[in-house]
């Protein structure tokens, strides 16, 4: 999942969206021959803590480290797994044995050969104990056999379809066994100067200033990458980021890097493009968590009233500048197979909201106020604060008085996920290609009150939902699994512990000189193997 801090200035203009991103679309463009060479100047913000996604799943780590590592598979723009370090794979009929055939003659950046032993070691020592998103997925693999250097066989307790949504270089990063074996993986010094197999080699990291990657001349995909160098510059100020983009010093700025007004202005320049492609693997969505143990929100009618009181289309237009789509279910409509459109809907209807509140016995007092709540908005900057203000205004209309509470991130997560001292909070989350990876944790009762950020903030406990998750995890039949997930969405939208608001779209800012920057669905955390500059980067 993306770093939670980085979208402070997440900004969007529907008019700016080049839906296809920088994919080569026109026939004229497709004929263009990629050009070798040049330094790609990129912005990374905030500065990563580690460059190894296996030990820290934050977005900046994924963006920089994604260029240094490969995965067993990569995801195409339709989120289908495609060969990367695994050239092909076989799944046994019972779904309990998966055999990966690994690419031969791949070496780590220090020259050591990459073998099946690296994969097997990473599974046992990294993915199982440390995977932050879904370690259960890997613990379901009892053992990995390595019949030869280029074959690794996973033996699963139960079949797992979701596993194939998390096998890229970010979700299941393979670490070099020869450098990590016998060390504490979390504190291994190579986390800060990684050795991978990817198209770019780590060169230097000057903290607070920049991270420099250089072309891997021995990359297995001969002739690639096209770029000689990538410089990720740390630029903490949004206005400075906009200025440097405008000046043309930067070719690539991921993670919604600049404020809205600047995006609008810069998108009009012939030298700059704004695109939203490359985030498909994440599927981010924005929601409100009701504290279902709080005085007023323990009543589902009150939660439904809030849903009716908020005009999501207006929210998207006013706060998110059209950069998103109204969410009607916790499973985004972009996850077409899993999304259930036949759930209880909560169209904008203040009268219905007021009726529900009256029914719940919460009448308006002489000041027209039914009750007062505190709303802790996600402290990632402007857009989330404005979302909070929008919610406050919307609820005021139906007689709910909202006090907005701002704080820093550490205070926010402690309050919501630890102390549970809140009424209503906002957050965003990634669903990933399979809702088991990103959605289940928000509704699973296992996580309530365990002070684990971004896990079941509402405090929702529903035995049927827990059972559905458990069954869906091991269901070998794709259709039955999808049916279970559709059933979950009906319950989630009936009980409504969490109110889905917006299917978010994040954007990148590119220089018009940069080509082929998005060629895969997990591009944001993947390598810029195919990217090239149509003229050499001019150094100042």
């Amino acid at each position, binding site marked *: 999942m993306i770093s939670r801090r980085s979208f402070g200035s997440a900004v969007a203009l529907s008019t700016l969206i080049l839906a296809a991103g920088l994919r080569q679309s026109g026939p004229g463009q497709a004929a263009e021959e990629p050009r070798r060479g040049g330094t790609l100047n990129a912005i990374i913000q905030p500065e990563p*803590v580690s460059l190894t996604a296996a030990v820290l799943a934050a977005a900046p780590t994924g963006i920089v480290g994604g260029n240094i590592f490969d995965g067993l598979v990569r995801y195409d723009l339709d989120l289908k797994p495609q060969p990367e370090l695994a050239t092909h794979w076989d799944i046994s009929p019972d779904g309990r044995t998966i055999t990966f055939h690994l690419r031969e003659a791949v070496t780590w950046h220090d020259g050591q050969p990459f073998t099946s032993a690296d994969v097997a070691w990473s599974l046992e020592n990294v993915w199982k104990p440390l995977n932050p998103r879904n370690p259960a997925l890997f613990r379901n693999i009892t053992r990995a056999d390595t019949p030869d250097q280029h074959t690794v066989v996973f033996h699963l307790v139960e079949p797992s379809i979701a596993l194939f949504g998390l096998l890229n270089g970010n979700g299941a990063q393979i670490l070099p066994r020869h450098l990590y074996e016998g060390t504490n993986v979390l504190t291994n010094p190579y986390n800060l100067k990684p050795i991978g197999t990817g198209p770019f080699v780590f060169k230097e990291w000057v903290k607070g200033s920049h991270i420099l990657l250089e072309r891997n001349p021995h990359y297995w995909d001969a002739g690639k990458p096209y770029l000689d160098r990538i410089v990720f510059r740390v630029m903490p100020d949004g206005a*400075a980021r906009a200025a440097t983009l405008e000046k043309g010093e930067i070719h690539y700025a991921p993670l919604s890097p600049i404020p809205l007004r600047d995006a609008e202005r810069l998108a009009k320049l012939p030298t700059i493009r704004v695109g939203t492609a490359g985030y498909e693997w994440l599927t981010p969505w924005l929601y409100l968590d009701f504290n279902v143990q709080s005085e007023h929100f323990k009543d589902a009618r009150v939660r439904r009233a809030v849903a009716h009181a908020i005009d999501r289309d207006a929210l998207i237009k006013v706060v998110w500048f059209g950069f998103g789509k109204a969410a009607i279910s916790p499973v985004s409509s972009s996850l077409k197979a899993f999304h259930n459109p036949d759930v209880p809907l909560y169209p904008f209807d203040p009268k219905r909201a007021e009726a529900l509140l009256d029914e719940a016995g919460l009448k308006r007092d002489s000041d027209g106020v039914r009750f007062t709540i505190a709303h802790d908005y996600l402290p990632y900057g402007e857009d989330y604060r404005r979302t909070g203000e929008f919610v406050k205004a919307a609820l005021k209309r139906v007689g709910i008085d909202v006090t907005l509470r701002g704080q820093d991130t550490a205070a926010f997560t402690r309050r919501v996920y630890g102390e549970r001292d809140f009424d209503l909070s906002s957050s965003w989350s990634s669903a990933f290609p399979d809702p088991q990876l990103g959605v289940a944790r928000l509704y699973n009762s296992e996580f309530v009150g365990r002070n684990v950020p971004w896990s079941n903030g509402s405090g929702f406990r529903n035995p049927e939902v827990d059972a559905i998750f458990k069954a869906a995890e091991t269901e070998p039949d794709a259709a039955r699994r999808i049916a279970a997930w559709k059933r979950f969405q009906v319950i989630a939208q009936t009980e409504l512990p969490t109110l889905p608001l917006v299917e978010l779209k994040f954007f990148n800012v590119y220089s018009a000189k940069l080509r082929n920057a998005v060629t895969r669905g997990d591009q944001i955390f993947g390598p810029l193997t195919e990217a090239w500059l149509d003229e050499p980067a001019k150094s100042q």
Partner: protein
Amino acid sequence: MTASGFIQRLAPGMHWARRLGQLAFIVVGIAIVNFFLLRLAPGDAAEVLAGEAGAATPEFMAALRQQFGLDQPLYVQFGKYLGNVLRLNLGYSFRQGMPVSQLIGDRLPATAILMGASITFALVAGTALGFLAARRAGRPTDTIISVIALLFYATPVFWIGVVLIVVFSVWLDWLPVGGMTTIEAGYHGTAYALDVARHLVLPAVTLGLFNLAIYTRLTRASMLQIYGQDFIRTAVAKGVAPGRIAVRHVLRNALLPIVTMLGMQVGSILGGAILVETVFSWPGLGRLAFEALFQRDLNLLLGILMASSILVVVVNIAVDFAYGLLDPRVEIG
């Protein structure tokens, strides 16, 4: 001669020993207060890391807490910290995976260059302007200088920074937007120094303009005050040239408050200049400390604070010493 004066003459070492004792006492006191004060902030470093990752498991967070030593009782953590303080060990940042002293050392040159350049600029230009304004007090020159100084003083530093970037980097394309070097160029030697100098101009001027205003106003005010004193009238009466009076008699005596100000600024070097460093992507200490606060990287923050407090105390002693040099009437006591 008083008894204490006698002792001082007899054993100047004793005075310094006493100052050193005060220094140690203050630094340890600050360290203890910091430790408990910072723990009032809700949340810890493990929660912040898990929060940034966007997903975590209780097992992962427990592993982090154990690694960071956050799973130990507070008195154990405090004991370890106090032990470090007494050995002048700044501690270890688990988040960054480096000793705090190394982190500070890596950032110190950037901050020292920025602060050094901006303070020098502000001191020289500010004193000169203040001098000019005081000599022309009440006349148009004075008014213009005072208005400009007030303007710089009242304008937010980050706003000046952004405006300078837009004008000199984006429109005129004379200077780079931010950073400290042209990374991809790989300069060495003189070329490298020139490159850093080019990057330094805007942040140093931005930071300097604010301080320039302070020095201008301070110089003007204290010079005017001294102009009103008897010994100046005496000097005028005995026919000393006005320029000589202004420099030798007035300015020299007016330097005391400026030295105080300078001391305060030098003492705050380790705190860096958060806003300017942020706007200009300058890899300095201010940002390091500021980010450490939000990241609940308390070891790093405590280390920076401790180094800062030592510096402040040392600079204070140096300022006292400078008083004595500038004005023999001031006794170090």
